[in-house]
């Protein structure tokens, strides 16, 4: 039994009872927070896992196209055709609050209005493999941005869940039992004091009566 180092007084007892009430309420709320966070986190992770598999598959395909393109074209020609990009992706970052965790929301906007207009070279001297690679990359971009958003959210949420879990556990297994034990200890101590003063009073009363009426001499 771990009790706190406190004086067994009535004032301390009321204070501890109040703290216990707060701790219990906090524990309940944190537990709810943990459960809800966990639910959302698991949903998000499942979604992220599917998204990542899809993105990785597409990216591998893009890489294949690029390898083919670099096989057909000379390295210099390939580098030159990609040297001056037309497109520029701008990301507007906002944050969304999920159970007190700030998670990012990325909104992408592109410089050119037409999202199909991404080829930064003339078609005359480049291989069609390169076109395939670039257009496949263009297709995967929205998913790629979503993946970044989801993975960052997972990362932030997992850290928060870990923190909340620690708090819940420490309240449940350390703080609350300690409060309860201390409260029990103080109330027992107070009762004990009460009993001892009561017996003392009874004894004193007996002695006083004895002194006045001399009961023991009469019998």
């Amino acid at each position: 039994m771990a009790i706190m180092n406190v004086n067994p007084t009535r004032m301390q007892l009321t204070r501890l009872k109040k703290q216990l009430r707060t701790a219990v309420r906090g524990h309940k709320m944190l537990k709810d927070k943990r459960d809800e966070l966990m639910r959302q986190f698991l949903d998000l992770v499942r979604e992220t896992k599917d998204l990542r598999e899809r993105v990785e598959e597409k990216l591998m395909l893009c890489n294949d196209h690029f390898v083919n393109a670099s096989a057909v074209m000379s390295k210099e020609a390939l580098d030159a055709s990609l040297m001056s990009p037309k497109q520029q992706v701008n990301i507007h970052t906002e944050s969304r609050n999920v159970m007190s965790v700030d998670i990012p929301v990325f909104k992408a906007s592109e410089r050119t209005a037409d999202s199909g207009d991404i080829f930064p070279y003339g078609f005359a001297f480049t291989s069609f493999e390169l076109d395939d690679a670039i257009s496949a990359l263009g297709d995967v971009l929205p998913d790629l941005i979503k993946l970044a958003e989801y993975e960052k959210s997972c990362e932030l949420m997992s850290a928060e869940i870990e923190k909340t879990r620690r708090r819940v556990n420490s309240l449940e297994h350390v703080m609350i039992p300690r409060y309860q034990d201390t409260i029990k200890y103080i109330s027992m101590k107070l009762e004990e004091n009460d009993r001892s003063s009561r017996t003392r009073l009874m004894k004193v009363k007996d002695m006083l009566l004895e002194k006045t009426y001399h009961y023991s001499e009469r019998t």
Partner: protein
Amino acid sequence: MAKHIAVLGDAESIKGFSAIGIDIYPCEGDEPSRILRNLADSEAYAIIYLTEEVYNQTEKERSRYSDRLTPAIVPVPGVKGNSNTGRKRLSSFVEKAVGSDIIFGNN
């Protein structure tokens, strides 16, 4: 404020990204850590993609930004193939949150 996207890795894997509007930073050897630090501290990038090799090289740098909203640092497979780094990363999140991996548990 509008931010951009960057991608770090070996030149072979990342040069295509420049066409779709992502800034590319080819690097090799021990350069990635320094470049990553510069990019992340410059606040100009919301997302930084790393090829898996670079991702595995820069663990110390990445941990500095893990509790920040941006930049989001995400591994992508390079030309050398997919080594499941992204999957492992996700499963590490699950492990951290739940205590044991219950999503990728079967392998």
